[in-house]
């Protein structure tokens, strides 16, 4: 009876007792995940491959946090704000000598343009475009966004004033613009660091210096594209070099894989953010290399300016994109918090 069954019905996976082999249509099945080849001795402590390694718990790998909702215009604003800040400071530092007149007026123009076009871009991102003035409804020191909006509004007025008055602007206006400019260039770093985003939060002490250094570099990058006389060129290049070196140092420090949040960094390395980040690095280094070539040439200066500008823009988009990637990775939030708990922190 059973003999008849086994030989007649070849379904499933059956053992043929005569041949001592598996027959039936299921007999050809292959294991999906083969046991890793460990030579002739299989150590007892090796995990059984059919049971996946115990991963730290999360909810179906779904994101724990919300991604930033900001669109392309926000990083563009970050860049313009940086240029405006750097120009405002440089304009205030330039002596009132005739040979610096052209540079000073460029600085005033760029500062004014940055703090007026910038808010326009910001408004573009607002869900409710008609409501930019709501930003000035309250002053909330706990919110870098509020501090920034007030700085932006104040600097906008002062920068316009110094553009209109030109050389005749009283020093209070010049220094006021410079102070506002520094705020506009730097608060964006505080703004990103003051979030629950695992990547930005992790780098909260590094982001403001990164933004400021990059603002200096972007300023020089933008000014290098203008016609400059010999003295102006020196000023711009010296100023820019400080920024570029600072930016590179801050980027290296950002990259140092701090063991407190390897999950966030892991997610970042692969995405679009990682690509932008690397592009920013390449452009920055190429710009510095061009600067270091001793030959004097306008083309070289302009090329360096273009590269620096590109690098600064890529950097800002990289920060937004990597932030989005990090927010999508639940373990980037859970991992560091768990470790902090275990560390008793």
């Amino acid at each position, binding site marked *: 009876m059973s003999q008849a069954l086994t030989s007649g019905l070849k379904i499933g996976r059956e053992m043929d007792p005569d041949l001592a082999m598996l027959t039936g249509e299921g007999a050809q099945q292959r294991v999906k995940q083969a046991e890793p080849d460990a030579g002739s001795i299989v150590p007892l402590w090796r995990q059984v491959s059919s049971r996946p390694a115990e991963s730290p718990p999360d909810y179906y790998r779904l994101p724990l946090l919300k991604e930033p909702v900001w669109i392309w215009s926000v990083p563009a604003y970050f860049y313009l704000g940086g240029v405006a800040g750097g120009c405002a400071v440089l304009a205030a530092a330039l002596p009132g000598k005739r040979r610096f007149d052209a540079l000073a007026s460029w600085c005033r123009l760029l500062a004014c343009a940055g703090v007026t076009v910038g808010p326009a871009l910001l408004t573009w991102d*607002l869900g409710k475009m008609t409501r930019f003035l709501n930003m000035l409804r309250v002053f909330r020191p706990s919110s870098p966004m509020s501090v920034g909006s007030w700085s932006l509004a104040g600097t906008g007025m002062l920068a316009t004033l110094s553009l209109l008055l030109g050389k005749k602007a009283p020093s209070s206006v010049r220094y006021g613009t410079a102070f506002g400019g520094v705020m506009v260039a730097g*608060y964006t770093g505080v703004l990103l660091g*003051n979030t629950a985003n695992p990547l930005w939060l992790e780098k909260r002490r590094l982001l403001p210096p990164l933004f400021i250094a990059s603002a200096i570099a972007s300023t020089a990058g933008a000014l290098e594209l203008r016609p400059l006389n010999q003295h102006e060129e020196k*000023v711009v290049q010296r100023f820019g070099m400080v920024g570029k070196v600072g930016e590179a140092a801050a980027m290296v420090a950002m990259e140092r894989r701090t063991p407190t949040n390897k999950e966030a960094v892991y997610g970042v390395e692969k995405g679009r953010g990682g690509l932008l980040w690397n592009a920013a690095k390449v452009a920055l280094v190429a710009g510095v290399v061009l600067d270091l070539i001793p030959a004097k040439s306008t083309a070289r200066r302009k090329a360096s300016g273009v590269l620096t500008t590109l690098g600064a823009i890529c950097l800002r988009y990289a920060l937004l994109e990597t932030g989005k990637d990090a927010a999508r990775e639940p373990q980037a939030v859970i991992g560091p918090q768990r470790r902090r708990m275990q560390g008793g922190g």
Partner: protein
Amino acid sequence: MTATGFFTDTSVCIGCKACEVACKQWNQLPADGNFFSGRSYDNTIHLEATTWRHVAFVERSLQLSGQITARPFSWLLMSDVCKHCERAGCLEACPTGAIVRTEFESVYVQPDVCNGCGYCVVCCPFGVINRREDDGRAWKCTLCYDRQKAGGEPACAKACPTDSITFGKLDELREIARKRLELLHSRGVHEAYLYGMTDDDQPGTEGLHAFFLLLDRPEAYNLPPKPTVPTKGVGASWGTMGVAAAGMVAAAVAAVRFVEGGKK
């Protein structure tokens, strides 16, 4: 007014989603679209601008204590909601003052003030609040401010058939929660614990006005184990910004001076 809030006891939740539906109905929130998540019975996936209550289904081949099943298998259910934090990241970040604390000490977004800057979205350590695509403003649970104003209880708590969601005065809720925890422990459910009830439980947010009784680690329910309001450490950023700003000024002055000096 005294503070009110939610105590969500996940040990009695049956995953019926009455709270989700009641919330959507009362607050006239649109549907999230017809899509199949393929993840257990959870098709809303997370809290959203249009989903202010979300029932999580944690379906695993794991045995819970005191459970007898033929195979290791368990379900944990939890109705999630905005936590109405004592120190709320969204509120402290909002630049327009749209997010306020009501007389019931809940956290409320005033839709006529919000301009959709989206800063609250990245500042909530629980990933609750979000901006709506269609109207560009940030939305989240209001703790049924309108119903409370009229002396009622929130729609979700009203609809919950098992009283998994309890609404009430915060002090009373804490008492109920402690008693429930004791009972569960005495019955041998040793995993049970209260998540975020007080400042001691969750110093990062100084306690939640919507707290939970959970049966597994928070991350199994997609809750952060140790959330902190971002504002608590913002001083560090301003500090390094100050130093960097000084550096910027010094760089400008030096760049100019150096050239000047060399020229003379």
